[in-house]
Structure formats: C-alpha cells, structure tokens
C-alpha cells in the first residue's frame, strides 16, 4: 500500500509474477501503475505490505537487486549531448557483467546511430536506447514503464521485437501500458488496475472470455433517432448493452444471430443506421465492462 497524504495511490495489491513470463499492468493514467512499478523497483517505499523480487528484498539485498534488475523509467531524459555509444558505455560501466556496448547496439538496432547525439534521435530510437540502458547489466528481470507511449505504430513494433528477443533469452518482463493491443501482443498475463486497485487478473484470453461475449457490435443511428435499450438487450446473443456519446455497443456471443436481428429491429422501427461495425472483444472491452468507462478518457 502507498499513500500520499490522504490519497491512497495503490491499495491492497496482491500479485505474483512468474519467472520467464511477460506480465502487463494495464490501466488508465492515474490508476497507480507507475507507483506500483516504482515500489517494485525499490525507488519508492510501500507504506504497508511486502515485496519480494527474485527471492530478495529491498530492505536487505538492495545492492544485489540493483545488479539483477533492468529498469526503464517513464520520464527519464538521457543526456542530450552524449552519443548513443557514450551513453551505453556509461550505463554498462555500472554493471560487473553483461553484453558489450556493440552487442547492446545490435540488440536494439541502433548501430547506425552509434555516434549520433541523443538529442538527434527520434522518439522511438530514444526509447530503444533507454531499454538498451536497462539491458546493460544482462538483467534477469526487466521493468518497463509505458515504454511505447507516444510512439508511432512502427516504432512500437520495433520495440516489441527488442522485448521478444530479451524473452527468448529467458528474461522476465513486467511492463505497464495503457495500450490494450500491446498487452495482447506481448503479455502472457495481465493485471488490470483502476484507482489503485487490481480489478482483474489473468491471461488476455481468459479475461476476454470472462466477458461471456467474444464480439462487440457498434452502431450509430442517423440524427435524433433513438431505440429503446431494453429492446436491444432482448436481441439474441446479446449479453450487455452500453451507450456512449455517439454509439451503442452490444456485447454478444453469437454475432451471426445478433446482427440480422438488430437490422430487422431497426428496419421495423424505421430507424436509419449511420454506422455499423463489429470487432472481436478486446481487453479494452474488459476494462469498459468492469469500470463503465473508456480506457482512453478514464
């Protein structure tokens, strides 16, 4: 548990990360992800509770833990006027063992930028450098706090590849993100956090399955037209109906029955569709169902 004055940032979190797995901590901004990960990293102290990492504890084994962990922080800006290689050499010098600077450069595909100043790197390259710094001591466990926030899709995929390579070498990852697709792609298990509490825990597949509905139908009606939610709930296969500003969302286990029934209902009511779409249920839908809020604007 971690309190800031009257605010309890993280409350009663109880979770285990297994060796060799990639664990994702999901949630909107302010959910307590960063506080949680910084407690695990030994940068913050929990007001209550116990943390064990790789069989050690911060209170007694800090020095050894520092060597065994790789850490990437959300807001760190590396020195602008050092080159990529100089930055890596600096971080590498803190660790007794690990890959050479050139091996690190290859690992994150920054060799062509070896002698470029950090200030000249793109956002994605800076993040990969930051991850390379975290990998400098050949860590057993890697902590990543929103490593892909603000990156374009291609840069995100490049970073994912770096993380995949780390896992192939047997490493464990704990990552926070508010991108559900990222969690889906990278993580073996995820924990969803909201307002300092863990509200769901499991593999991405399990969590989606827990909705009892694998598909979501989204539609919008032409201006001013409305349709009674009770009628929608009664449609075959529909488990849940939710309305936001512009759209109606139906969670369903039987897409092939729900959609024709919906179209029939609407034509019967002489309502005009302005938009209709379906997608497979995602972790995003899990979050929405659990909290009633969208992840992005939560």
């Amino acid at each position, binding site marked *: 548990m971690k309190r800031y004055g009257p605010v309890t940032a993280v409350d009663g979190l109880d979770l285990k990360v297994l060796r060799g797995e990639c664990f994702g901590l999901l949630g909107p901004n302010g959910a307590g992800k960063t506080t949680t990960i910084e407690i695990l990293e030994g940068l913050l102290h929990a007001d209550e509770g116990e943390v064990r990492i790789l069989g050690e504890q911060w209170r007694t084994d800090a020095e050894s833990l520092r060597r065994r962990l790789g*850490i990437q922080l959300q807001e760190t*800006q590396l020195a602008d006027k050092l080159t990529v290689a*100089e930055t890596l*050499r600096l971080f*590498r*010098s*803190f660790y007794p063992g690990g890959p050479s600077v050139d091996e*690190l450069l290859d690992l994150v595909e920054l060799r062509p930028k070896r002698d470029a100043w950090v200030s000249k790197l793109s956002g994605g390259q800076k993040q990969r450098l930051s991850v390379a*710094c975290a990998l400098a001591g050949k860590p057993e466990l890697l902590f990543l706090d929103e490593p892909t926030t603000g990156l374009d899709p291609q840069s995100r995929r490049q970073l994912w590849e770096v993380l995949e390579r780390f896992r192939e070498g047997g490493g464990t990852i704990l990552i926070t993100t508010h991108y559900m697709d990222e969690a889906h792609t990278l993580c073996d298990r995820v924990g969803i956090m909201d307002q300092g509490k863990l509200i769901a825990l499991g593999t991405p597949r399990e969590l989606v399955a827990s909705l009892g509905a694998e598909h979501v139908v989204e539609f919008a009606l032409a201006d001013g037209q409305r349709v009674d939610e009770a009628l929608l709930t009664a449609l075959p296969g529909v488990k849940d109906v939710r309305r936001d500003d512009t759209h109606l969302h139906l969670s369903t286990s039987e897409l092939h029955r729900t959609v024709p029934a919906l179209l029939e209902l609407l034509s019967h009511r002489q309502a005009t569709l302005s938009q209709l779409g379906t997608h497979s249920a995602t972790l995003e839908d899990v979050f929405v169902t659990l909290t009633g809020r969208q992840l992005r604007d939560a």
Partner: protein
Amino acid sequence: MRDTPSGREPVALRRASRGGARHPLVELTLARFREFLREPEAVFWVFMFPVIMTCALGIAFRSRGQEPVIAGVVEQAGADEVASALEAAGGFTVRRIPPDEVDRAVRDGRAPVVIVPGTPPTYRFDEARAESQVARLAVDRALQKAAGRNDAFTPVEQPVQNVGSRYIDWLVPGLLGMNIMSTGLWGVGFSIVQARTKKLLKRLVATPMSKAHYLMSHVFSRLLFLALEVVVIVGFAWFFFDVQVHGALWSLAGLALLGALSFGGLGLLLASRARTIEAVSGLMNLVMLPMWVLSGVFFASTNFPEPMQPFIKLLPLTALNDALRAVINEGLAIAAITTEIAILATWGVISFALSLRLFRWQ
C-alpha cells in the same frame, strides 16, 4: 577484483569485463567533461568571460603614473592667470568650467578639482575621493609656488617602479579566484539540478552506480577544466599585461586545485536539494554575491570596517584570493598561507560531507 585472486589483472582485461567500458568513476567524469565541452555557452562563460573581464579592467585601470592632473578653472576674471600658472608648473591639463557647473564637474569626474580664481582662490573638490584630494594638493602646490612660495628643501625623489604593484597585478589573482568560485559552483550545481529535473538522477540510482562516484565525478570533471581555466587566465594576463607569477607554479597549481575542490563541494551542497534550475540559480547568487563584494576581488577587503574583518577572513573566496595574491604577487611559499589553506579545506570537507547527507536523488 573479486573474480581474480591476484586482483592485478591488466587494464585491458578489466575493460573487457565491463564490456568495453572503463571504471564507472572514469566514465562518469568523462560524460560530464564531454557534456560541458559540447555546450558552447558554458565554454564561453568559463573561459572567455574572465579573459574579457581582465582585458577591460586592465585597460580601464592601466598604470597612470605619467598622466597629467586634470584641473578645472571657472571661467571668470583671473581664469587666464590661473591657467597659465598651472601650465608653467607642468603636469596639468586645464579644463575651463562654466560658473554654474562647478559642483557638477567635480561630481561627474570631469575635473577632480575646480579652482575659482580670486584672492585667495577657492578650491572645490570632493574630500571623499583620493583622486580629488591628490589633485587639490598638486594644484595648491603649483599655485603657491607661482605666488612666490619657496620650498624649505628639495627632497630626493625615488619612485618605485615595481611590476607586481600595479592594480592589474592585484586584480588578476582576484579574478582568478572569482572564476574558480563561479565555475566551481555553476559547473557542479547546474548540471546536477538539470539531471534531477530530467529524472536522470532517478534513473542512475536505479542502477548499481555508487552515489559517491557520481558526486565525485562532478568535482573531478571540474579539475580537468580548472587546469585549462588557470592557464588561460594567467597566460593571458602575462602575455598582454605582463603580470608575473612570483611564487612557485606548483604552489599556484595546488592552490587552484584546493580552491576548485572546496567550491565544487559547496556547489554540491547548494544543489543537493534544489528541484529547479531557478531555485539553484537563486541560491548560487545568494552565496556568490556577498563574496564578490566582500572578498577582495575588485577592491581590497580591508576597506570594510574592522569589526567585519574576522567574518570576511573566514569566507572561502577571501581565503583563496589572499592566498593567490600571496603566491602570485608576493612570491610567498605555501608555508606562509597555511591559515587560508585550512579555511578552504574546512569549507570543502564540511560541504561535501553535508551534501552526502542531504542529497535528494529523486
């Protein structure tokens, strides 16, 4: 060391065990050094500023032994007689002053003394200014002589022409001390606070890096610049103004080193808690400003009243300036300045120890 029983493996091997990186203290110091050199503004302030300052002050206060005394004469009846008497005596530049501007001319420095012709003449001058007093004496002597006074005797005059006693000779050690202070404080304080605001400090403490290594690297990287700084300032003053170092060069080097360590420690202390660049700038100015005034950079600290002297003597910049002058101007040995050395060392040790305790890493 742990993995080899002898603990004496060759340097190349040790580097290999760190994946091509050197000892963390070396890497940290190098990183600081590079960051500084790649910041053109910083280089300007450290090297060019003191040189420009020395140059400007050297020209403004160059030796004026040969220069004539400026005497103002009020334009009214009898002015011509006074002027010709002064010109006949020699060594005066006569400046005519309109009657309604007498006091202003004395005040704004056009004429340090103004003569109102008459019987007897009136001297208008500023009692508080040495320059004004000297001019009054010279004018009085010339006019009394012209009026018929005879000297009781003619003294034998032997002017001392000592290199080392000019203002510029006195000024350069003070500028050097001031520069060691300001680059020590800025160089250390600024970069630490910057690293803190960029969360780089937090990132570094998340590694196994030794915190003492980090703090030491800032002080050490200062020493690398220090050598350059001292050479530039002393070399410039010697080349253009013939300012000589009368003492041993190694005493000068040792003093500069001690000064830099001491002010580097003070810089650490000032930066140990500040969260923003503005906060640390304010603190630094608060610390430096009194020393600029009190510690004898531009004028001797003995100008301040006696009760303040013990306090002024304890300031680190006073100690450094006094010691530098003793070595550069008077050619004294280290043994003669042990008090100053002790004061500087105490400041350094106390501030380093305090900052280790107070330092906020995140």
